[in-house]
Every structure is written in C-alpha cells, then in structure tokens.
C-alpha cells in the first residue's frame, strides 16, 4: 500500500509537471453525484488526484438526489450546466433513449486495463448495458437486521423477512415497487432465475402484491437512503432494506449491532453519463478516462464498500483507507450468486403501471 502511494505520488508529480508546461485554458467542470460518503470517496479517489495533475481544471462537486428531472429540464432549455452526472443504470438507459446523454465509444474513449485488455472486455459482463454509460461501481440493495432482535435466532433467507411470526418487528422498505415485488416473489418460493418470468404474468403480479400484503401492517416505508440505518439504530425497525455501503458504514464505522442478510440482494450498477449538450465535453471525456481507469476504481473501494466495475480492479481492492479492515468480505460482488440483477427493460415498460398500482395498494 505504501509502495502504491509512492508510485501514485510519483505519477501525480510527473503529470503535474507536464500539466504546468502546457498552456491549456482553465476549465470548471460541474460533476454531479449523490453527496455524502459516496461523493467523498469519489473526491478522494478521482477529483483530487486529477486536479493535482491538471492545475487548469477545477472540479466542482454538486449533489443531487438522483432521477432525471433536472437533466431533462436542462436539456429542454438548452442551458446545460452539468458536465458529468453520476447515474444509476436505469436512468442512464432512459436518458440515453431520450437523447439527454452522449453516446460513448467505450474502447476508443476509455482507458485499457494495465495488461492491455480493451475497456469493453475489462468491465464486468452485463454492466455495459447502455451506450451512454460508463460503469463505476457495483452496489446492492440488501436487507440488514438487528442482530440482537430475536435472541440467538438469525434470519437466513428472504422467506424469513416475510415471516412475522418467527421474526416479529417492523420492517422498513423503500416506498416504490421496484425490488419489493421481486422480493415478495422470492419469499413466496419463486427461484431467483424465474422472478421476472412470473412477474410478467397478471397472476404473478397479483401473487407479488398478495405476498407483500402479508407484511403491509409491519412495514415503515422510507424514501431517503439515510433513513433505514437510523430506524434500525433507534430500534424502530428490525429489518431494513438499504444500500450496502450505508449498512457497511453503520456496521463498521458506527459499530451498530446490525448484520447483513445477503440472500436476495439486488445488484445494481452506478456510473457516469455525460450530458449530450454539455459545454465542456472534451475536458470531461479526459477526466472520465482517468476516473474510470483500473487504479482509480480500485482506489475508490478504499473509501466505500462498493465493488469496482472493472475486472482488473478487483484484485487491487485492499483495505479501508482509515479503518484498515479488509474490504473484500464487504463487497456485494462476493455474494453475487445469492442475488440477482434488476431487469431494467421490464421495469422500463412496466414501471409506470406498477407504481400506480403500488400507490393505489398503499392507499387501500
């Protein structure tokens, strides 16, 4: 690790020197991301080293709460102030289809792996699902529970989450149909690989809602990612769904008595998209090439427990930058076989209808 630091310091110094001699004009890049610990990890791993190397580039880090509302408004007005946006894959797909984001030629514009493997082969299979999207991390939405809630008993499967008799207490779930319907089917005995086949039928949808209804009165619905760890910490809920990085910091940094239930985790991909009408496309593409290379993706995993999206970064994931714990066991990619990937195409088609039905169901 020390060696790596020295190496990268050398590299930084070298490039900084090169940067100083060039007479490029100064650019401000507005990079938009999720805020909190996640943005902090990006600043440490990408923004700061890049700004050290390029004294003419200033990266402004802006926060948003996801979704495409601002992006669509900016694109419609033609006054695009964002240069780079951190998005989840499903938003990247929609934004790409609606012309908000710029298509990226991944092999030409992104860095190769250290061994020369082209980028399109280096990113994990199944992550390059949109031509406007460069993957960054794999995260998962996953259940955690209070380890002290039921004496020595521990839940092990999704069915336990829906078993209020053996595991009584409130559950806190995100207030949207995505994932919840899948989990309901999973708990109802549908095998991992068949979830979307079942969900695509009317009977399957009814079945998912019926299963969800069995725990409806035990659910506290959340809308903000910071809420579930708080509810579990306050003892207001015993099970909660949340992003694995948030659970990691609650367990490892705040020493909360939580444990992970990796069964049924929903893997998702987060990455960069470039607004099609952005004002600094060239400068941003240069930054992107740097920020998504093998070393940088591995560096980010030192600050937060999200798995790097490049195969070549995997072996370089080491210990947490300040806590010194081994990050490997906290990576959702380690438990990939217990989880599944959201079917974005299915949700793109059925999201509106399911959300309406879900909201109507909540009101009942």
């Amino acid at each position, binding site marked *: 690790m020390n060696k790596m630091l020295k190496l990268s310091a050398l590299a930084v110094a070298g490039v900084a020197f090169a940067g100083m001699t060039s007479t490029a004009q100064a650019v401000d890049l507005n990079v938009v991301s999720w805020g909190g610990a996640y943005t902090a990890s990006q600043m440490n791993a990408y923004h700061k080293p890049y700004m050290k190397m390029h004294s003419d580039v200033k990266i402004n880090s802006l926060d948003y709460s996801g*979704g495409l509302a601002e992006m669509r408004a900016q694109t419609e007005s033609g006054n695009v102030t964002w240069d780079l946006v951190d998005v989840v894959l499903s938003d990247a797909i929609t934004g*790409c289809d*609606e012309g908000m984001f710029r*298509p990226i030629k991944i092999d030409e514009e992104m860095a190769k792996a250290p061994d020369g493997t082209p980028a399109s082969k280096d990113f994990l299979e199944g992550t390059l699902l949109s031509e406007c999207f460069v993957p960054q991390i794999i995260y998962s939405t996953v259940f955690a529970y209070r380890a002290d809630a039921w004496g020595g008993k521990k839940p092990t499967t999704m069915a336990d989450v829906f078993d209020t008799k053996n595991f009584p207490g409130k559950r806190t779930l995100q207030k949207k149909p995505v994932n919840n319907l899948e989990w309901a089917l999973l708990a109802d005995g549908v095998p991992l690989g068949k979830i979307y086949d079942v969900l695509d039928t009317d009977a399957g949808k009814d079945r998912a809602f019926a299963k969800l209804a069995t725990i409806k009165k035990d659910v*506290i*619905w959340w809308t903000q990612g910071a809420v579930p760890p708080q509810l579990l910490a306050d003892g207001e809920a015993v099970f909660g769904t949340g992003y694995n990085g948030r659970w990691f910091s609650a367990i490892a940094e705040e020493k909360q008595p939580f444990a992970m239930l990796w069964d049924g985790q929903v893997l998702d991909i987060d990455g960069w998209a470039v607004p099609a009408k952005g004002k600094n496309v060239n400068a941003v593409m240069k930054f992107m090439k740097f920020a998504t290379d093998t070393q940088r993706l591995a560096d980010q995993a030192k600050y937060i427990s999200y798995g790097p999206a490049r195969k070549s970064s995997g072996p370089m994931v080491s210990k947490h930058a300040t806590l010194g714990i081994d990050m490997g066991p906290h990576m959702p990619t380690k438990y990939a076989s217990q989880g599944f990937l959201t079917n974005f195409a299915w949700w*793109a*088609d059925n999201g509106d209808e399911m959300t309406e039905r879900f909201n*109507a169901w*909540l009101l009942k």
Partner: protein
Amino acid sequence: MANDTTADGVVLAADGLPLKASLTRAMRKSRIRALLLVTPLFVFVLFSFLIPIFDMSMRSVDNWHVGTLMPETTKALENWDGKALPEEPVFAALMKDLKAGAISREIGKVGTRLNYEKSGLRSMITSSARKSKKVKEGPYKPIVLKMHKRWKELETWTVIKRNTSKFTIGYYLNAVDMKYDNKTNDIVMQPEDRQIYSTLFLRTFAISLAITLICVVLAYPISYLLATLPTRYSNLLMIFVLLPFWTSLLVRTTAWIAMLQSQGVLNDLFVFFGFVDDANRLQLIHNLTGTIIAMTHILLPFMVLPLYSVMKTIPPSYMRAALSLGANPVTAFVRVYMPQTLAGIGAGSILVFILSIGYYITPALVGGTDGTLISNQIAYHMQTSLNWGLAGALGVLLLFSVLALYMIYNKIVGIDNMRLG
C-alpha cells in the same frame, strides 16, 4: 374673476380652456398615470407568474411526441381504418421514422409517451429503433413484425394512431382514474387496483374539511376571548396567535416532529404518566394523525385572525339586550351572537380550506403513507416519474378547485366588507 365664464355660459378654467374639457383631460391624465404605476407589476406578474401557469396547463394537453418525431408514420396512418394491421406503406414510413429517431436519439420520448397508455410500448419503440439501424431494404412489414411481438397487436396501432393528434385528453383521463380502452377506443374507468387520483382528491378534500372544522372549533373560543377581553390583556394573548403565524413553516413542522415522534416529547410524557407503556409508544407521526395535528397548528392563526376581527365589531350590548329580555345565556349566544359571526367563520374556513388543499411541505414531511395529499402526487410526477403532462393535468384540476373556492371567498368577504362599511 370676470373671465371665468364665456358669453354662452361655458365655465372656463384658469388657463382659459373650457372647464369640462380641462377636467376630462385631467381625468385622462390621472387615469394614464394610474395605469403607468400599475403596469410594471402587471407585466411582471404576467411574465413571471401567469404565463408559466398557462404554460403548465398547456403541457397537460400537449401531445407533440408522435406527430413531431414520427411524421411519416403519422401521415401514413391518416387513412388507416383501425380494423386490421396496417399495410406495407405504413411500415415503410415507420421504418423511416425509427431510423431518423435512432440517429437523432429522440425516439425514446415517443416510447415514454406511448408507454403511459399501454405498458410495454417503451421498449418496443426503443429496441426497434436500435434494430432499425441494421435494416437495409424492404418489404418492411415482416421485418418490423419480427422486431417486437407488440407490433403484431392491433391495440399497439390503435394507441399510435390515437396519439398522432396534436392534443390529448389522456392526461386528464389519467388524473380522474379513467383511460382509453385500447381495443375499442372508448373511455372507461381504470381497473380498480390502479385507481388512485380520485381517491387522493377525495382524501385531500376530506382532510382539508376535517382540518377546517377543527380550526373552527379551536379558533372560536379563543377569538371570542380575545375579542371580549380588555385590550391590554388581549394584545398580550394575541402573541400566542401571532408568534406561530410568523414562525417559519419548517420550524413548526420540525417542532411537531420533536413533539410527536415515538421517542419524542409527547410520547415521553405519556410513558411518564403511565398512559402507555414504553414498548407500545403511540404512532403519532408519519401518518394521518401527524398531518392533521401539524396542519391544524399551522393553519389555526388563519382562522383566528378573521374571526377575531369580525367578533371585535359586534357590540356587546346586543348580548346584554338579549339577556335582559329574558333569553337564557345559551339561547342568547346561539341566536344572537353566533349569526353575527357567520361571516367570519365563512371567511376563515374558506381561507383555511384553500390553503390546506394545496399543502405540500408538511404532509411530505410528516404524512407517511396515509397522510399525503394530491400536491405530493403532483411533486412526485414532476420530480420522480417525469410524467409532466400528468403533473400538469393534476395541477390544473387542483387550480380550478381553488379558484372556485376563491370566488366564494371573495363573495363572503365582500359581503362582510359591505356590512362593515
């Protein structure tokens, strides 16, 4: 003073012109001056407020997507009878549009628009556009039919044809839980498990009504007390009404969260006095109860102030007269005092009602699942689902209910003013 009138009796002003003309001119001048003073604000309100709202209401009927992004298909479908799948010319036109749309990268908007009326059309459009890049030559019908299974469904074409028109009432149908039947093109109710907006509108009205009633009940005694106490006491007590009135909405909402949450002040008190035990603290927030308590608190001053100002004008001698004529206190109060306060109750109630049906912040923060109102749904469609047409339609419906109420308010307050004047 001799030249004040001319020979034929016309009164002249100091400058020698006929007084009547001079007066007219002065009046015109004053009218123009008045207009000039009002114009800047009028223009400002027009541009920064009324036009935006008009723009929003246009979005609720605007249906440009298919017509603009699929112009060829739109033209080719003009004469389609809707009885069977269209023929090759339509498919050729469709292929042209898909290719153009794939290059301009805007075809996804058509997919999004059509998907509102039939689930599944989004991926049909986007995937077909992607595949269209590789298509060289026709006949296109078999090629397109193979691209996605939904192209073979008659319903798909009915939906496309219906949305070639520039305007739609589709969003309004959606906003009142109705839809087009894609087989027959008739307007029908949504299936029951998707009916949400009419429920929400009704609930918004019911909650607003409940809050209004609670406000009347709470405001009446304290307004009466304030109106009948000597000024130096009532001025002091008025602070209890005015301080909440002037305190930030978010501060008051925060305060209620501190009061009501399960580890909050009120539950602690209940546990301390043994009303509830520690394990079963009451759920007072993130539900309907929380919304009603917090909103009543926030809107109560809007009821007290008009009620107080009306009560202040009622001479105490009326009540005394009734009492001295032998009415018992309750009868005197109900038959003599209360009728005179009706105008105040009316004005306050409509004000509170108007404010509460448009409320957003407090329900969003303390409402949970069953305490959210229609405005929260509007915000959801603006920021999350991005269905701006539906947000516009819901907004216009809400706007019209508020305007109707405002007219009633105007009438009541107007009558009130006349009585006072």
